[in-house]
Every structure is written in structure tokens, then in C-alpha cells.
């Protein structure tokens, strides 16, 4: 392990605190503050992984995760960006996509096969003869992919989420972002500042060069950060990557937890009034042969290895750069002890004079108008060829590090995902954001500023603009800030070099997908002439780096290759997440929200097997065998108790209450009698039946009505929707959850009820279809209805939810001697099927109208003038004799019931079975089916085609309905 610096003010490591970890089965030590990648680097690791296609060796290139070069498996989690992930004690690090090791990969030979793999080659191969494709596909699948994930992998850690609101959200905690945040905060606004790195400071933070008046950039960063931290109304999220930006300034990000945090990572979704984007720049990769060879790295990477992580990237560094940060890096690394034999500067002129002097003072050779054209060395850089930009003169230098960087690329991600446009700017050579979305502002070096004061001034201006959006800043103040900017240096001139003078066979424009500039030429030649198509065809930018490496080089190169007069070509569309994010992190805290009825606990104790049905959890079975035989027989012979609390229950009152009901229900509800229950249905405008239920009149223009479970949540919305033009005065109150419902059914139901209530529940005193209100024990108010959904004597008791448990226990106690038992939803399903009572959605589908399922009797044709929803369609469809009709059927020769969903066929499909069962009550198989109208006549023979029947049909006959107790005596007894 190499010695680490411990004296630099910029260091983020604590060399006294050693952290053990496992790599390739052996224990290594890093230092507190290390990322996994820097810890490995300190231990001499230079080859981290192999590339996707050609298995080329890959090393540390950047520090911010623009490519997959340093992605590794950590503790079983694949594709971890080791350059941005902190080292933790005991972690196990493995190499990915290698056969053998990253150092010696048996598949390394593929790199020599690139001639056989031009862009899009797979579309032209492996399909002739057709037989080889499945075999080839298997091999492709194995070869593709990077990391490995076990199918039973359990993601450790805690994942959280927050949804804060603020006035101003600043993305980027560098000098511009911090200045903007401070400016907005000083206006009294609530500010959120998010920064991807674990600390504030941006590009000032790691630099020891002079900011102004002998203060270093680093010191300035610390000064600003201190000010930010002591400002109460700035909420700082560090180690928080911005991943998305949406309309109306919704900003998303994820934060990596510190040791003291209760979360491993957390998803942050911010609603901001105004946003400042100060995300800075990354470096634009230099294109030359073997430009991704281990040892080649960006200037910022080399400098931060030294200044932040306390180690030199190597012994001898050749530089091929196109900006002053490159010169600064050369000077800094030289001063820290590295040998710098040469700097090839793409620029002929325009260097910062002070830096140039510093270079010359150190006797470093600087070649202006030169560029690296090839990195040599099998697995690591050993030598570099540099040439004059016109490729007429060349020199070769020995080295172990090549710092290569063509220029800067602004990080415009948050702006462009929020629909800003990018326009090429000739001066900076940037694609600059234009047409910024409302209340979104850009600041800092992403606009091309390199001067430190200009960067901060642009942050101040953006912060004030954001305050202005929040109506907390005057136009005069904005004007001052603008003016202050004009007195400072504007954006710096950027280099125009796109690629070094090379043929480009091993010049990689996209590292992740091994796309060379030769591949780009091939794509363009084939007609894929815009970056978006080149990306799809060649893969450039489709890898985990998400365009970080090819982002701006691809459009620049495309324009150059096609010799376009000016650069109208745009970079490919940037798509969120701007930083790849764990599914675990996005999921955050997963709240499962279901409704439980007031009898939930009681039924669970009684052995109920629950299912999620819509928003509710309901007891579907009380029998382990799922046939529900005992439950069914007990209802038919004794008495059963069903929890019907999920039914929708509503009160409607006010002058237009009746009008409103007339609008949505097909029956004429003006005729409803007090003390009676009216069963009716709602249709949609197609005449398709969407809901059924009962209506009870409580008083003049005052009704209580029920809906099916599934429709409860939409009922108010539905009624208000269909009356939205009418200006009617009515009130709707949702009492669904307020009332528990017990359905007491079976021949003994009356005997049980008698024991609990004081009123007369005889057939004369409380007849079928009647409605009563009374109290039990002078305490529990009850709304009771006599209905017969299951075909037996039944009472439906609607009771305030808080009393439900007490009533449930009372009925159970009272019913003991009459063999009272629970029954669940499935038993009810069979019981009602035997009575041919329909359940909407089961006996009906989307296209089934009221007439099709034989419920036309509910439709009051005399009721006109209400514009009742659905009746126009019913009137029009009534004469159509090609529709599906609901029929009842029995099986031939006492055969078994067909499965639900079985088809009714002749030479084509003629209908399907809705519900069918081997009925215990009837001792035969019966069911209901939707069939074409010509098959609906009684006596029609039906042929059933079931799944997996192998052509063996079973047969039944259309019969009269209902099957059970056709006269309906039992429910009226």
C-alpha cells in the first residue's frame, strides 16, 4: 500500500484510521474517507473491470461516475460505482464481466476481433440458417450484461423517502450554487441546496490554486460552505444526487446516508417554486487511440486523487489537455512530486499567463497545438505518442499516467430533462441551455464561466432571479446583479478539437458500449445520420454512464464527419434518472394501504382466509378446502353470518336529491315507498351496467342507498359528474366506512335476530323488501333491510362501525343454539349463483348492458326528462338481436360443472361461462354463461371448451332460472 499524504488542507481522508476490506479473496486496507476505487488504487489496483463487448481492461478515469470503468460487485450488489461509493469496513469487492480476473481475462482476445463486429453487425448475422439463432442468442445473453445478481438476493439496508417543499431549490453545491442559495435565503425564502458529493464546494473544493488575494479556491469553498451551514433557512442535502427535474419544478434526488443517519439511502422529492441549476461541468473526453487504457485519466481525477485522497496517480504523467485546469493539475502534481515530462496543449494560445509561467518555471515542456494520438501498453499505459494537431510531427514519451481532457462539458441534465433546449455555442464549444423552463435558472461554470468571481456572480444573479420568482426581490436588485456580472470576465473560449488525427479503430467515443469512432462512421454511412439514431444503432451512450462520456463528442463528431456547415445537430435526449439509482431507493418506504372492516379482527380469529378485494381486505373463505361446502350448507340449513361492511353506503339529501338519483339510476325512484327497499342499477352511457344496490327513502329528498363494494369509491364522483351542468342543490355523504354491515342469512336467521332485538321481526312485522330502523338494547342504532341475495331468509343489518364488534359477539352468542357460522365471500358467490343473482363484473363484462343480463325490468321507460345515464344507449341497442345474453345452464347427464371461464363453442367462440359450480344444494352442476342471443333459448345445447381440454367438450343445456327455490319462497318465509 502506498504512502498517503496527510498534510494537505484539501484532504478528505483520515490516514490514521485504516479500514479493512476484501478484494479477490484477500484482505486489504483503505483509509477512512476513501471511496472503494481510491482504496483499491492506493493498493496498486489499476485494472478494475473489463469492458462489455471487447473485454478491454478498464481503469480509473473520472471521479464522478460518468462511465462503468470502475463498476464492481460489492457485497453481492452488482454494478456499484466504486469511485463514488465510500469504503466501509468488511465489504467484499469483486470484479465484473471477467473470465479469470480483470488483470488476466481469458476473453481479452475478443478485443482483436473488432473487425468482425462493425456497428449493428448482429442484425446481419446469426439468422442464417434460422436454427443457429436460438443457440447464438444463449451465448449472447451470457456474454452480455455486466454484473451478476442472484435471483434470491436480499438488498440490505433501510430505504426512506421525504417530500419536502421549498421556495427555491438549488441543484449543485459548488461556488455558484452556494452563492445562489445564500442570495435567496437572505430574502427570507426557504431554500434547499442539494449536492451530489459528500461535501459542499464543487470545483473550488479540491483546488489549492489562488482564488483571489492569496486565498485559495479551497479556502473560499470552506468559507462559503460555513456561511451556508449557519443559515437557518437553507436546508442542505449533501451526498444527494439529483436524478430528475419535472414540470412545475418537481425535483427528485437520492441521498446516501451517513453512519449517523437512520437510512441507507433515501428518495427525496422536492416541490420548489423556483430552481437554480448550478451543476458545473465534467470533462469532455479526448478521442485518440486507446483513449480508455488504464492509466489514462481526466485532469480532475488526477488532481482529486492527490488533493482529496492523498495519493499520486503514478510516477510520470504526460498531459494532453485543452484547458487551464489541465495546466493547473500538471503544476500541482509536479509540486507534489510527480514527474511531468510534457504537456501537449490542444490550444495554440489563450492559456492563463500565470499558469503558463508556473509551467515554464518548473521546466515542464509544453507543446502548444499538440495532442495525444495513441496510448501504448498492453494493459496499462507505458508510452504515449503525441502529435501536432495537423499530424505532421510526432513524439513519444514514457509514462504511467496520461492525463487526457479535451475540454469541458456542461452538466445540463436537470435543465434538459425539464425541457430546456440545447444550442451549440461557437465561443465555448458548449451545447448551452436555451428556452429554460419557467422559474428555472442556470448559473456557474455550466454556462462557460471559468473566472471564479464570474462564477459566483452568476450564482448571485440566479439566486436573486429565483427570489424574484417568489416575489421577494425587486427588479432594481436584479439589475444591479446583472450589471455586476457585465464587469466581470464572460464565458471562456473552449477548444474545438473533436478527435485527435487518428483512424479511430480503437478510439472510443463510448466506453461502456465499446463504440469507436469507426463504428460511428459506419452508422452514418448506413443512413443513421442523427445522434439519436446512431445511439440506437451503435449503442453509443446506451450504457450505465448514460451519455456522460459520449454526450457532447457524439454530436460534434457527427457534424464533423458529415461536414455540416454549422452544428445544428443536438446531443441525444437525456433521460432520467440522471444518476443510476437503486430500485430499493426509489421504492423508499413502501406503505401498503388496505381497508379493514370493523369485523376484521373477529373474522381473522375465526379462521377467515383473507383476500385483497379492491381497496378492502375481506374474508373470502372460512374453509380450508376452498369449496366452502360447510359454509354453504350451513346457510341453507341453519344460519350464517357474512361481513358485508364493504358495501358502499351513502346519504343523499337536499332539494335536488331525487333528481340526482333519477339521473344515475335506471329505475323510477319517485315511486319509492317509505319503509321499503328499492333494488336498482346504474349504467354508464353505453347502457352497460356498472353498479347495483338498494335505495331507501329516509324522508323528503333524503335517501340512504348502497352500492357494490367496487363502486363505493367512485359513487360521489359519478353522481357529481353526471349532474355537473345542472347546478343542482344536493348533498352527498359517504357513509361506507361509518356503517358495518352484517348479513344474517338462513332459515334460522329470524330466531337469532329475535333474541337480540326488541322489535317484531316476524314475516308480518318485518316482511321481505322492507326497511326498518330500531335500536338494540336502547344503544345500538340499526338500519335493517330484508333482502335475499343468497336466496334464504336474510337480514342485512347496517350498524355504526364502532358497535360492530359488540353486535357481532351478541349475534354469535345468540346464534349458538341455531348453529350460527361465519360464511365468506366465496360461499356467498356460490349461494347467489344458485339463485342466479348476478355479480357485476362476474356475470357482466365491459360491453354487457342492462338488458343483456336480464335486468331490463329495472329500467323504467316511462321515466323521461331526466337524461338518465345509459338509457339512450339501451333504447338504441334494444332491437339488436346479435348481443350476448346471460343464461342459466345445467350439465348433461349430471356431469361436472365446467370451469369458470370455459368457452361455449361451435365452429367458433359463442360465449363463455361466468360462474359455474357443482352445487351442493341442488346436487347437480349449474352455472351462468353469456352466450350469443340465438343460443339463449331454453333447451339449447351448449358445448363447453375448457382450457387444457384437448378438444374434449362437455355439454349442458340452457334452463330456466333461478336454479334454487325458483318461487323465491325461502327468502320470503
Amino acid at each position, binding site marked *: 500500500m502506498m504512502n498517503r499524504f496527510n498534510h494537505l488542507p484539501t484532504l478528505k481522508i483520515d490516514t490514521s484510521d485504516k479500514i479493512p476490506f476484501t478484494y479477490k479473496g484477500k484482505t486489504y486496507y483503505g483509509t477512512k474517507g476513501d471511496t472503494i476505487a481510491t482504496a483499491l488504487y492506493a493498493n496498486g489496483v489499476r485494472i478494475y473491470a473489463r469492458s462489455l463487448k471487447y473485454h478491454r481492461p478498464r481503469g480509473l478515469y473520472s471521479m464522478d461516475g460518468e462511465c462503468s470503468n470502475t463498476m464492481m460487485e460489492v457485497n453481492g450488489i452488482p454494478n456499484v460505482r466504486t469511485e463514488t461509493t465510500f469504503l466501509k469496513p468488511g465489504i467484499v469487492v469483486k470484479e465484473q464481466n471477467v473470465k479469470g480476473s480483470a488483470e488476466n481475462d481469458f476473453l481479452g482476445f475478443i478485443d482483436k476481433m473488432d473487425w468482425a463486429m462493425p456497428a449493428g453487425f448482429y442484425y446481419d448475422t446469426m439468422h442464417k440458417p434460422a436454427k443457429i439463432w436460438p443457440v447464438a442468442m444463449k451465448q449472447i445473453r451470457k456474454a452480455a450484461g455486466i454484473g451478476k445478481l442472484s435471483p434470491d438476493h436480499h438488498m440490505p439496508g433501510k430505504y426512506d423517502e421525504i417530500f419536502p417543499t421549498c421556495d427555491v431549490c438549488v441543484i449543485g453545491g459548488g461556488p455558484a450554487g452556494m452563492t445562489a442559495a445564500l442570495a435567496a435565503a437572505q430574502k427570507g425564502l426557504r431554500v434547499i441546496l442539494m449536492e451530489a458529493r459528500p461535501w459542499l464546494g464543487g470545483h473550488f473544493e479540491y483546488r489549492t490554486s489562488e482564488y483571489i488575494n492569496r486565498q485559495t479556491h479551497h479556502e473560499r469553498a470552506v468559507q462559503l460552505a460555513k456561511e451556508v451551514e449557519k443559515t437557518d433557512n437553507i436546508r442542505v442535502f449533501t451526498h444527494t444526487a439529483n436524478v430528475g427535474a419535472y*414540470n412545475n419544478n418537481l425535483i427528485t434526488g437520492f441521498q446516501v446516508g451517513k453512519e449517523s443517519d437512520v437510512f441507507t439511502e433515501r428518495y427525496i422529492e422536492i416541490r420548489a417554486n423556483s430552481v437554480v441549476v448550478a451543476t458545473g461541468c465534467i470533462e469532455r473526453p479526448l478521442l485518440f487511440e486507446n483513449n480508455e487504457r488504464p492509466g489514462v485519466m481526466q485532469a480532475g481525477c488526477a488532481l482529486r486523487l492527490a488533493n482529496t485522497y492523498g495519493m499520486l496517480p503514478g510516477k510520470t504523467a504526460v498531459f494532453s489537455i485543452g484547458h487551464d485546469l489541465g495546466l493547473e493539475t500538471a503544476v500541482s502534481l509536479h509540486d507534489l512530486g510527480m514527474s511531468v515530462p510534457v504537456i501537449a496543449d490542444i490550444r495554440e494560445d489563450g492559456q492563463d499567463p500565470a499558469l503558463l509561467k508556473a509551467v515554464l518555471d518548473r521546466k515542464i515542456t509544453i507543446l502548444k497545438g499538440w495532442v495525444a494520438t495513441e496510448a501504448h501498453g498492453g494493459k496499462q499505459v507505458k508510452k504515449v505518442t503525441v502529435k501536432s494537431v495537423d499530424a505532421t510531427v510526432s513524439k513519444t514519451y514514457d509514462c504511467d499516467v496520461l492525463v487526457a481532457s479535451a475540454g469541458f462539458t456542461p452538466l445540463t441534465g436537470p435543465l434538459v430533462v425539464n425541457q430546456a433546449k440545447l444550442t451549440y455555442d461557437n465561443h465555448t464549444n458548449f451545447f448551452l441551455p436555451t428556452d429554460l423552463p419557467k422559474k428555472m435558472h442556470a448559473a456557474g461554470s455550466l454556462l462557460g464561466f471559468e473566472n471564479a468571481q464570474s462564477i459566483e456572480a452568476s450564482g448571485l444573479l440566479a439566486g436573486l432571479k429565483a427570489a424574484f420568482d417568489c416575489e421577494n426581490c425587486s427588479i432594481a436588485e436584479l439589475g444591479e446583479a446583472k450589471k455586476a456580472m457585465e464587469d466581470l470576465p464572460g464565458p471562456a473560449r473552449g477548444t474545438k478539437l473533436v478527435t485527435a488525427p487518428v483512424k479511430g479503430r480503437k478510439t472510443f467515443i463510448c466506453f461502456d458500449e465499446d463504440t469507436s469512432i469507426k463504428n460511428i462512421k459506419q452508422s452514418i454511412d448506413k443512413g443513421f445520420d442523427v445522434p439519436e439514431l446512431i445511439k440506437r444503432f451503435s449503442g453509443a451512450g446506451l450504457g450505465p454512464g448514460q451519455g456522460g462520456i459520449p454526450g457532447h463528442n457524439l454530436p460534434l463528431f457527427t457534424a464533423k464527419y458529415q461536414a455540416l456547415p454549422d452544428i445544428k445537430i443536438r446531443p441525444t435526449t437525456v433521460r432520467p434518472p440522471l444518476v443510476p439509482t437503486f430500485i430499493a431507493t426509489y421504492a423508499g418506504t413502501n406503505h401498503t394501504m388496505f381497508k379493514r372492516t370493523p369485523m376484521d379482527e373477529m373474522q381473522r380469529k375465526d379462521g377467515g382466509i383473507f383476500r385483497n378485494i379492491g381497496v378492502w381486505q375481506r374474508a373470502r373463505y372460512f374453509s380450508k378446502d376452498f369449496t366452502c361446502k360447510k359454509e354453504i350448507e350451513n346457510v341453507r340449513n341453519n344460519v350464517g353470518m357474512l361481513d358485508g361492511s364493504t358495501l358502499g353506503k351513502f346519504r343523499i339529501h337536499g332539494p335536488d336529491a331525487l333528481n340526482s338519483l333519477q339521473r344515475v339510476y335506471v329505475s323510477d325512484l319517485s315511486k319509492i315507498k317509505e319503509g321499503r327497499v328499492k333494488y336498482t342499477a346504474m349504467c354508464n352511457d353505453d347502457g352497460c351496467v356498472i353498479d347495483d344496490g338498494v335505495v331507501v327513502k329516509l324522508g323528503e329528498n333524503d335517501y340512504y342507498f348502497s352500492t357494490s363494494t367496487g363502486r363505493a369509491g367512485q359513487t360521489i*364522483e359519478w353522481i357529481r*359528474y353526471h349532474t355537473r351542468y345542472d347546478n343542482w342543490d344536493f348533498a352527498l355523504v359517504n357513509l361506507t366506512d361509518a356503517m358495518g354491515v352484517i348479513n344474517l342469512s338462513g332459515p334460522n336467521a329470524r330466531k337469532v335476530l329475535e333474541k337480540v332485538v326488541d322489535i317484531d321481526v316476524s314475516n308480518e312485522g318485518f316482511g321481505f323488501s322492507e326497511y326498518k330502523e330500531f335500536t338494540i338494547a336502547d344503544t345500538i342504532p340499526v338500519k335493517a333491510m330484508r333482502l335475499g341475495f343468497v336466496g334464504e331468509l336474510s337480514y342485512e343489518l347496517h350498524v355504526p362501525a364502532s358497535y360492530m364488534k359488540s353486535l357481532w359477539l351478541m349475534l354469535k352468542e345468540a346464534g349458538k343454539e341455531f348453529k350460527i357460522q361465519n360464511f365468506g365471500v366465496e360461499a356467498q358467490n356460490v349461494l347467489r349463483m344458485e339463485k342466479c343473482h348476478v355479480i357485476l363484473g362476474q356475470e357482466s363484462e365491459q360491453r354487457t348492458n342492462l338488458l343483456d343480463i336480464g335486468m331490463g325490468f329495472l329500467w323504467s321507460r316511462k321515466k323521461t326528462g331526466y337524461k338518465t345515464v345509459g*338509457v*339512450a344507449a339501451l333504447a*338504441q341497442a334494444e332491437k339488436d338481436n346479435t348481443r350476448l345474453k346471460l343464461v342459466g345452464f345445467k350439465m348433461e347427464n349430471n356431469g361436472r360443472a365446467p370451469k369458470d371461464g370455459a368457452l361455449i363453442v361451435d365452429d367458433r367462440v359463442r360465449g363463455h361461462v361466468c360462474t359455474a359450480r357443482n352445487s351442493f344444494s341442488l346436487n347437480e352442476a349449474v352455472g351462468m354463461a353469456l352466450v350469443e342471443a340465438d343460443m339463449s333459448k331454453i333447451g339449447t345445447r351448449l358445448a363447453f371448451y375448457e382450457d387444457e381440454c384437448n378438444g374434449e367438450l362437455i355439454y349442458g343445456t340452457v334452463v330456466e332460472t333461478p336454479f334454487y327455490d325458483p318461487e323465491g319462497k325461502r327468502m320470503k318465509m
Partner: protein
Amino acid sequence: MALTITCPICGKRNGYEFRYGGEEKGPRPDEKDLTPESWCDYVHMNKCVAGVQQEWWFHRDGCGSWFTIFRDTTTNLEKETPEAKE
């Protein structure tokens, strides 16, 4: 989010709190004159405007109001008037 809707009662809110209720097509036509064509036109047919349209929304997770807004379907941004441009 991508979408916020301004509820006349609750103000500007996350679009997912609302239910979309269709293009504004005017009051329900009188049932007695409806032909299959005019019925179908009212019930099913849409203009599918790529631009600003008037449309219905219901504040499902909020105050329970139905109301109309103008929205540009090419940007998902609300407009104050049908003619409003950026």
C-alpha cells in the same frame, strides 16, 4: 409529477390527486333527439387536440369538486385561457 392542476378550492396540487374527466363537450344532450351518431359523438368521440383544450377534472383525493381547466396537451401545463401561449 409532471403535472399540477389548479383546483378552484384547494389551489395548485399534484396532478395525481385528480381524475381526468374528458374533453369539455357541453351539457348532456336531450335524450329524445339522440341518433346513434349524435349519441356516439357525445359519449365517445374526442378531438384529441395537440394544444390547448378545455377539460374536466375531479379532485378525487381532495375537496371532491368537478371543474374545468385549460391545459396544453403538448406540455402538460395549465393555461389561463384557451388562447394562452407561452
